[in-house]
């Protein structure tokens, strides 16, 4: 009976020793040695950095557009331009992160050869679905000139999606300016339209 009791006592003491060891193993920074055995919290830091940026691009399979003037079929009619090559629609894509309540806008201008008596127009649609955030407002149809014109305004933190059918659809047209019809000359002017995203405020 005494031997059995000794063994039982030894086993019990060993059992306590093992449990104490287990408590020590499970904790970093020496917590396992705490006699209180109560330290149920821990923490670490996390940092997120957000900087402003804006970027813009055009999508379209053929971005070299050509328009041709058709000779009037009936004497007395005005000249009419039709698109002869290039994509009939281009798509304005952009991404931006704004600071606070600040916003961005997109402007456009044309450079290149003189085209007196002709209006180069672009119709800027509202933003398509497929993006997210505070996309801007399309200006509708405007006449492009050599000075910057606002084509999209009120752009906050957003992205339109990248590619065709995403962002703002751009549809171009060329027409005679009736107030300056007399300035139209038989020629082949070549123009470049430049879009820029910039701070609006």
């Amino acid at each position, binding site marked *: 009976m005494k031997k059995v009791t000794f063994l039982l*006592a030894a086993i019990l003491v060993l059992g306590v020793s093992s449990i104490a060891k287990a408590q020590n193993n499970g904790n970093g920074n020496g917590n396992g040695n705490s006699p209180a055995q109560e330290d149920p919290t821990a923490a*670490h830091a996390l940092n997120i950095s957000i900087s402003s940026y804006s970027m813009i691009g055009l999508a379209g399979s053929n971005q070299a557009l050509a328009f041709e003037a058709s000779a009037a079929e009936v004497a007395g009619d005005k000249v009419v331009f039709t698109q002869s090559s290039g994509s009939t629609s281009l798509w304005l894509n952009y991404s931006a992160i704004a600071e606070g309540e600040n916003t961005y806008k997109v402007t456009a201008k044309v450079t290149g050869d003189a085209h007196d008596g002709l209006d180069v127009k672009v119709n800027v649609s509202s933003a398509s679905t497929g993006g997210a955030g505070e996309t801007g407002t399309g200006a509708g149809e405007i006449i492009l000139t050599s000075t910057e014109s606002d084509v999209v305004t009120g752009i906050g933190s957003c992205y339109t999606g990248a590619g065709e059918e995403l962002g703002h659809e751009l549809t171009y047209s060329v027409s005679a300016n009736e107030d300056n019809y007399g300035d139209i000359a038989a020629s082949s002017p070549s123009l470049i339209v430049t879009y820029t995203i910039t701070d609006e405020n």
Partner: protein
Amino acid sequence: MKIITTILATLLMSLVLCQQASAQLDEETVHIGFSLPEVALMDVEYIGNGTIEFELSPSAESGGSPVVRQLTSQEFWINYSSALGKFSPDRSIVAQISGGTLPEGLELYIQATDYSGNGEGKTGASVGKVKVGSDPRPIITGIGSAYTGNGIGNGHQLNFEIDISQMEKVSASGAHDFTIMYTLTDN
């Protein structure tokens, strides 16, 4: 260590029992009592400086969504030791944001892995991907009496993810510092 402990324990108990046997010849019983208090210890172990850093970067192409990049590759592990009373319910580990706020338009998710390591007992189970805010949310549940082992590679590894929930509310607001706090709790 175990051998020494065994010898010491046996000698100790032998001395006590011999004294009792000589003093009380008609008694042969020994009463042994010990108490094991409830234990609730937890720690976060990591490699690195202990700060997780994220950055919102522009996408590769115009029109694309921002890219959330984790700047530092670090490992974070939760270690714990838990001893429960006989009728005590299992424990959980909850996480919450304290000492700062998450930037508007962003969400923080934490996912603990299932237990691995050198521990024993009834270790907890991962809840999966959990959205963490200022209120405590369980990330590990079902912790009974167990220990995970100490250090990297023991316990539950923590993975962090920042998602953009409301793009229009994301603002270029510089650096945001805050603290993630974990608590081993009794329910």
